[in-house]
């Protein structure tokens, strides 16, 4: 089971956080601080896995952004890397050549995509097409929901 997913920049600025187990603010802050320092200190050509307390940390860098996944120690590390990769693919498909700025300015979308993909720390839907369809549909809804008829229709 996954415990958290963090996205942060090379400068250690947090871009997205998702927690799958309840933690206090202080614990979260500590994890964020530890993760950024640990991951950013890694040398090139080292493996993508770390240990942190009883958790396994799987991280990967895509351009200027680090994706850092905390999983329980019996999880499969390679699979964790693929979870990250699939999420990046999803972001890429949605934003089209995704970059860090896309995620900064539209972070709520990044959250929505993530929520379609993972649920309560487990994989919910792996299909790129399905997830993308969901997000696109809700986007369309946003564009349309100024239209009176639709709102009436929906709540009528």
């Amino acid at each position: 089971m996954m415990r958290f997913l963090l996205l942060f920049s090379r400068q250690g600025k947090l871009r997205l956080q998702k927690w799958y187990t309840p933690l206090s603010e202080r614990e979260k802050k500590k994890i964020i601080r530890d993760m950024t320092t640990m991951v950013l200190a890694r040398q090139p050509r080292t493996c993508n896995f770390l240990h942190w307390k009883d958790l396994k940390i799987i991280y990967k860098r895509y351009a200027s952004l680090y994706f850092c996944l905390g999983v329980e120690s019996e999880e499969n590390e390679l699979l964790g890397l693929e979870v990250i990769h699939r999420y990046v693919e999803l972001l890429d498909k949605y934003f089209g050549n995704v970059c860090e700025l896309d995620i900064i300015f539209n972070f709520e979308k990044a959250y929505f995509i993530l929520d379609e993909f993972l649920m309560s720390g487990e994989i919910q839907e792996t299909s790129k097409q399905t997830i993308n369809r969901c997000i696109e549909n809700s986007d369309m809804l946003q564009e349309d929901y100024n239209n009176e008829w639709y709102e009436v229709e929906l709540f009528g």
Partner: protein
Amino acid sequence: MSDVVEKTLTALPSLLSLDSQPGSAKLSSTSKLGALIRGITELTSKHEEEKLIQRELASLKDQVSSPNTSMRQMKEAMVRAIYCEMLGYEASFSYIHAIKLAQQGSILDKRVGYLAVTLFLNENHELLLLLVNTVLKPNVPQRYDTCNTPLVEEKLNHPKEIIRRKAVLALYKFYLIAPNQVQHIHNRFRKALCDKDPGVMFASLHIYLQMIKGYKDLTASFVTILKQVVSGKLPMDFNYHSVPAPWLQIQLLRILSILGKNDQSTSEIMYDVLDESLKRAEINHNITYAILYECVKCIYTIYPKTDLLEKAAKCIGNFVLSSKINLKYLGLKALTYVVQQDPKLALQHQMTIIECLDHPDVIIKRETLELLFRITNAQNITVIVEKMLEFLHQSKDDHTTIDLVGKVAEIAEKYPLQTMNTVFSLGGDMIQPDIPNSFLKLLSEGFESEEENKKLRLFAVDSYILLLEGETRNLPQRFLQVISWVLGEYSHLRNDLDPARVMTLLTKLLEMRQTSSETKTWVLMAMTKLCSGEASVSIARSVCEDLSSSMDTVQRQRAHELLLLSQDRALRSQLLPLCSDPEPLEVDSSLSFLDAFVSEALAAGAAPYKPPHQRQEELAQQKALSLEPYELSLPINMSSSCVTGRQSPTLMSVSSGLSGDSAELSHKGGSTTLKLEGVKRVWGREGYLSKKEPVEEVAQAEIPSPLSSPNQHTGASGTSSNTHPPIPTPEPEQEKQQLASSLFVGLGSQSSLCLVRADIYSTQDVPSHSVAVFQYSLSVIRPVVHFEVMGMLSYQSSHKSHEVEFTYKLPLTNFIRPFTVSTEQYGAMWLAFSNDTKQNLNLVTDGQDSLTDTLNVLKGKLNLHIVEIIGMEGIVACRLAQDQPCLLHCHIHAGTLAVWLRSPVPDLPDSLLYHCQRALEGT
């Protein structure tokens, strides 16, 4: 209303077929969020950022509490609040509004509201109850409470698969939080497992993984599902990089491994599908490796089947040997897992393991240690603990340190003495003083069982005696102290052990230059406990004589005690009873029993006591007395004694320094000064010493020298010469055939740093016109490239004495013997040896058999044993003496022969490498 719920969940059906670009909501640069983010990026200091955010939060607060704010504006404000929180600023005022938004807004507003709620609130937040009570949409996934169970349950029957899927996952979460609450709906899970939508089935697997133990009957179903998945029966949607549903596969493999554990009949159902999984996972992609890894783990968890195990082991090989570091990591992990079943598997990959141990990436290193920890046994424990301690020294991370220390401690429980001995000899004098203390405490107080205690103590005594009989110079002082204490306290447990023998060993420690005076007092204390029996008493007496003039008062005191107690047996047994039960001692720290003495002394006019620091201060003020001149005078004495060549103990140290140099010089032809040194030493200043005086150098003969045939080779006696019957010879210089006087063989000098051990024998009369053959056994103590044997003949003819010196150069190869071992033995030894060296050498030939050819040349010239050649790698073994092996690992790399030598003997790999190089150059 339920319609709304449904639409929220599915993020709406595609009933609006309006064409809209994905990502059309890109960079809303005009939005307030955009402005905020840009504002922040333009700032230069943290302080400015703080000011800006505080302003932002203030305006947000106004906005959300204003009744005129529309839901849409509210949604926008929430996004900004989330952003501020992500930057680390609290926006708690917005929490309640987030809930409100989740309750009241339109579908999209709700979504943002829920997002905000999940990010803002944690499990124990008081507002959560409000959320649960008012929200009627439990399937919006992230927050729930058990009171929602019926609602979620209802959704299990929903026509939309995505909702069923979410409902199952929600129930899974309930199960994790409170398993009892969902007990009554276990049959619902089974229904979910049989759902026509594979996604729902997959979701249900999460639950089954948690409570699988009770569902053995489902094994066949799981196997069928896996079979279908593996053979690609699922819709394309489930593929990931053309691998069918990898997440689902892995989940199933995990379930199967739990089901099949220790259960042969259940395991048998799975063999086929596991085999199939191994076969199918061929594509070279991370995700297939992930599946393979899980597969291998499963195969090693369930009831074993030979051919599957073999396939799995091969799989692990692919991981371990991979150049991709992530795969290597996983390979090590897999190995760690499987060696618990089959430790031999580690042997196959020992080279990689060794490489990983020195890997620059600490994570890899740590994983390797983890693996080594699993294969620890009595033989390799020393090396493994050494590596662990090495890692501990470098580790900065607390969690790692605690974990590793725990492991060292675990090993220490299994092999208490070996571990502690390693810790002592490695940690050396750096270790905290309380470690040896607590170790001694452990020994003396012991465990619960008396039998166990005795065994441990006996073992300690045995191993320490063995240690003292070997090389003691490199042992740390603290360890020597521990040894002395243990020997003093417990050697009486070993009945057949003569205390005099222990005394002799301890005396050796006293005579050692390196031994600190603190250690010496420990040794003396041990001797005091030991000296019973005549032989011991006489040893004690001679020790006391030596030390009674010691400069060190404490030593003098102890020596005096020893002398007195060794003579008064009754007093000794009263003071130092054997096997005393450690009764709590009462220590009178105020020394009140001396009060009378003090007052008497004071009354007699003695000066009152001053603490040391006060005395020091006063001394400094007076600028009186300096101890320096005394210390300076010592080295002068030393050098003078060296010049005169007297048999003073200091000569030993000076000449040993010289011979240390000679070891490096010897293959360059030696040095004349060295020879003189050696000659002087034995013959003395005025020529050779009396003929009747045998040189007392006892040595062990282990390897026959090239001069002698093996059957004539004698044992470890002082005189090992064999005189053959005289043989007439046609040699012209008959005078020289009258051999006389003594001959010695040695290298460098006879100091303690001697490289070769040889038997030295005394003078002998040989009849004239005859040949006497003297044979010596040489054994190597410290390997160098060449050994120089120097000797001198002195003989008398017509009342004139003659002396002839000779030297003879023996290459190391003369001492090398093939060493026949199996590959497994080789592997076990390789791990245990600590001295190594690597180099690339030239190949003898090019082409296919170049490795075999080259190794054969080495075999022929150097007398090595080729253990095995596999492909481009070959392993070779040889030895010096019985316990001095050297292992070579060769593999062809970029047209050269990369050789890696390992041996327990220092300098052996380097010296041997030199000869390998020469052997290959010569062809």
